[in-house]
């Protein structure tokens, strides 16, 4: 992620909540990474631009990342996508949906003690490759899977 942007965001609008969380003892002042939203990453269009925004221009494709998702999604509005990284030292998992208007869907931070696996549900406008990008030991790795989005219902 882009450190300068993070810094800028931290100083910006979301500072209020951050202070509140600190006051509630939910977040320690040092946990800045938990706070910022990386606009540049989520604005990126297309996989190459998204990877660049994430600072992961040339990830190594590996089989040590398991994507759990349907081959055919019943409904593009709710597509369950899970990811498990078997790579030691995993600190971050990101979802990229190639054909969506904005490629990056989610970036998950995995602190020490948290398992490198996550599940969520995403929206897909059309059949697309879904890439799971993993940062492990400071290096980037990826796997991907095509998910088909069907036409359903009667059309009546």
């Amino acid at each position, binding site marked *: 992620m882009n450190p300068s942007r993070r810094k800028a965001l931290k100083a910006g609008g979301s500072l209020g909540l951050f202070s509140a969380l600190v006051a509630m003892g939910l*977040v320690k002042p040092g946990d800045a990474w938990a706070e910022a939203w990386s606009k540049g990453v989520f604005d990126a269009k297309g996989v190459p631009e998204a990877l660049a925004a994430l600072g992961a221009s040339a990830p190594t494709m590996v089989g040590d990342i398991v994507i759990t998702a349907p081959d055919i999604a019943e409904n593009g509005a709710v597509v369950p996508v899970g990811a498990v990284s078997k790579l030691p030292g995993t600190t971050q998992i990101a979802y990229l949906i190639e054909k969506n208007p904005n490629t990056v869907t989610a970036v*998950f931070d995995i602190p020490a003690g948290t398992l490198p696996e996550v599940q969520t549900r995403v*929206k897909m406008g059309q059949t697309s490759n879904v890439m799971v990008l993993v940062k492990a030991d400071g290096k980037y790795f990826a796997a991907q899977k095509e998910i088909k989005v069907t036409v359903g219902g009667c059309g009546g």
Partner: protein
Amino acid sequence: MADPMKIRATLQGDTVEVRVLMAHNMETGARKDSSGTPIPAHFIQTVNATHNGKVVFAAQWGTAIAKNPFLQFKFKGGAKGDKLQLSWTDNKNASRTDEATIG
């Protein structure tokens, strides 16, 4: 005010499995209402989970997380009866924090 989250945190061996449902519209900003007026983007941007004052999970989301989001993750170091706090903040700077007990 947004509805409470539904949080299930269960200890399985030495691992706490956390499953969360959040009530949020997750508007992409690309849709229009029935009169053709664009519906502004409204979506959760950050999610944080803390246990004993330590962040155990953090996420940044774009607009393509499904409406009424679901999230599942696992962490070690929790015990039965411990509290777990979940927070989200959206792009309109609204936020919500809920607490669950690990069972």
